[in-house]
């Protein structure tokens, strides 16, 4: 396309461009500019007082830092466990509530969405109480069944499980709503036709529901992968990255390096690495999972 053609096309569709302009400006100033600035800072030794160009020194320092690999491993672990788990749980709940009356559907959607609109700090206090190893709710329930108490936030794997439970509770509400809308969009006539052909529930799900909600699944898969890769709030509020770094994620480390220790250059390296990982995963997810789909 020549430059003249491009301008001509923009002019022709000017009303459409006018409507996306506010979002575009927001994206340029609040997403693209910080992103470019972050990449630039990764080549600088930067603190609150000065910025000195040091080439790839920050990269070499970060790649030799055991905390980087540890936080990368933890982040990867959370993505691998949480993404499929959230997809499965939200789809399962959406399927169950789709059979209910509209009143109960709204009730359950609202109930599951509630944690997402509640303040994270308040929610974390509740969860800290639930996970307390001495007087917490979970251990109280375990004690009823004569199961020994678990030091939820005081041991590696229980702490990771605790974070996973909390993140699921915060995230799953929105995914249920999205899956519910995808399920509602499937024409009933397809199910009726399959029933005439004698299809059972599993066959209906596997041959009708699943293919027709795949676009939504891929959308959720990509956005969840991006979102969970940036996991930090639940960790920050519940474990602070502990016990002994067992839940330290890449973004938590970015926060620590940037906001607590003012090592902006190193924090930017983490951000650049995270950007590249997320971009690569999202690219391949769209490229290879998306190809047989009709939107």
């Amino acid at each position: 396309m020549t430059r003249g053609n491009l301008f001509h096309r923009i002019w022709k569709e000017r009303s459409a461009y006018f409507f996306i302009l506010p979002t575009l400006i927001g994206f340029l100033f609040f997403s693209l500019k910080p992103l470019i600035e972050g990449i630039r800072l990764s080549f600088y030794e930067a603190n609150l007082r000065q910025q000195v160009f040091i080439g790839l020194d920050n990269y070499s320092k970060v790649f030799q830092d055991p905390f980087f690999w540890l936080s990368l491993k933890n982040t990867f672990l959370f993505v691998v466990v949480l993404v499929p788990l959230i997809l499965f749980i939200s789809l399962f709940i959406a399927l169950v509530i789709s059979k209910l009356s509209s009143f109960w559907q709204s009730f359950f959607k609202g109930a599951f969405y509630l944690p997402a609109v509640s303040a994270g700090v308040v929610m974390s206090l509740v969860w800290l109480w639930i996970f307390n190893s001495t007087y917490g709710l979970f251990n109280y329930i375990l004690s009823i069944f004569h199961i020994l108490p678990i030091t939820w936030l005081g041991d590696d794997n229980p702490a990771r499980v605790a974070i996973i439970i909390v993140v699921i509770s915060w995230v799953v509400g929105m995914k249920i709503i999205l899956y519910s809308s995808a399920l509602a969009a499937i024409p009933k006539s397809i199910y009726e036709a399959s029933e005439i052909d004698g299809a059972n529930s599993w066959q209906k799900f596997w041959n009708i529901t699943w293919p027709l909600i795949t676009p939504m699944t891929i959308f959720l898969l990509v956005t969840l992968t991006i979102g969970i890769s940036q996991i930090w709030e639940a960790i920050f509020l519940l474990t602070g990255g502990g016990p002994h770094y067992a839940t330290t994620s890449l973004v938590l480390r970015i926060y620590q390096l940037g906001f607590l220790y003012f090592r902006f250059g190193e924090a930017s390296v983490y951000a650049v690495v995270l950007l590249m990982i997320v971009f690569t995963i999202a690219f391949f997810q769209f490229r290879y999972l998306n190809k047989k789909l009709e939107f």
Partner: protein
Amino acid sequence: MAKPRVEITFWGEASVQFQNSIFTEGYKKLHPEVKINLEEIPSQNIREKVMIALATGNSPDVLGDYIGRLGNWANQGFLASLSGTLSVEDEKDFMSSVLNQFKIDGELFGYPMRYWVISYMVNKSILDKVGIGDIYPGTDFPLKDWMIIAKKVKELGYFATCFFANGRSGDYWMLTNFLIFGANLWENGNYKETTLNSGKGVMALEWMIDMVKGGYAPSGVAGITDGDYLNFMNTGRSVMQGRTPGTALATETLFDNGLLDYIPDFRVVGTPHASGILNPPLFIGPSGYVVFKEDDTEKLKTSIDFAKFVTSKENSKKVCEAYQQLSARYSVRLFEDQKCFLVAQKLISENGVGDLGLSSPHYLEVRDAQFPELQAAFMGKKTPQQALDDFAKKIRNIWKEK
């Protein structure tokens, strides 16, 4: 309305106990030509907020905060020097152990206002309940007495104490347990090398781990937060802990809020001490007011004047009463009818103040480095010696990286 001659920005700590507008309105009455823009900021956000303000060139003119954070800005060269701005009378009126913490290389960077003191406390109501009120400790509290009480209260289902390692603050509470064995975080003002990994420090950490294993303290220390630590004593589950004397005044509120079914009798006692360790010091944590560097001399002068006004005797009294903390000024005498405060003050004057290095160059990073190593020790991933050695190594790395 005439345009104000000088306009300054004041960031005060947001608090339910105290409204910073008392300062701004009081100063405005004396100096109607000055306009003060007040912003109240929750203490948990203040570090990030100031950092962003500094990065964007929008720092406040006067800031009130905890010294652990203020020292950080001073060490990075953002604060105006206040040396020579105090009158002789004021200089004498400020407690030297507090005022000295607002100095770096002899240069004054802030005016102190109030301070908390970590004093060891016992819940006397529980001691009475288990029939050992008669061995209630005084300002001298040998560890062997501590153990007698611990065994007794444990038999009746109470925890003797509580430890925590899932913290981002409250380092002073855990460090108080090191004082029991005479282990100090720093010695002789050398903030580049900790002495916590000495034999005494290792002994202290081994003791804490043994107390958990023996059921004298709650398990899962690596996951226990500083909030849990306070709750254990507030709700009568644990009997002896390092606390602030203000806690004793708050017990009625806890009762009123239904958190307790009785009003416990919290008392300040001496920090327990192992055999051969005498008079363990107490940790104090001052808060105060600083002035950021400013090219406009009139604005700078006004900011300094305002910070002095804020920390005046009259204001100090109001603030300390509201926060239930002691004043940094000798002349401001408070809580004279409250035994907890009196005992704490007596202990400070007799035993002195421990060095947390609150205004040392990397205090915040050192504090953050401490908890993961404690977690590792309590989880059994490292021996106490390894954990404390790794902590010492981290401190060396922090200095090296800077």
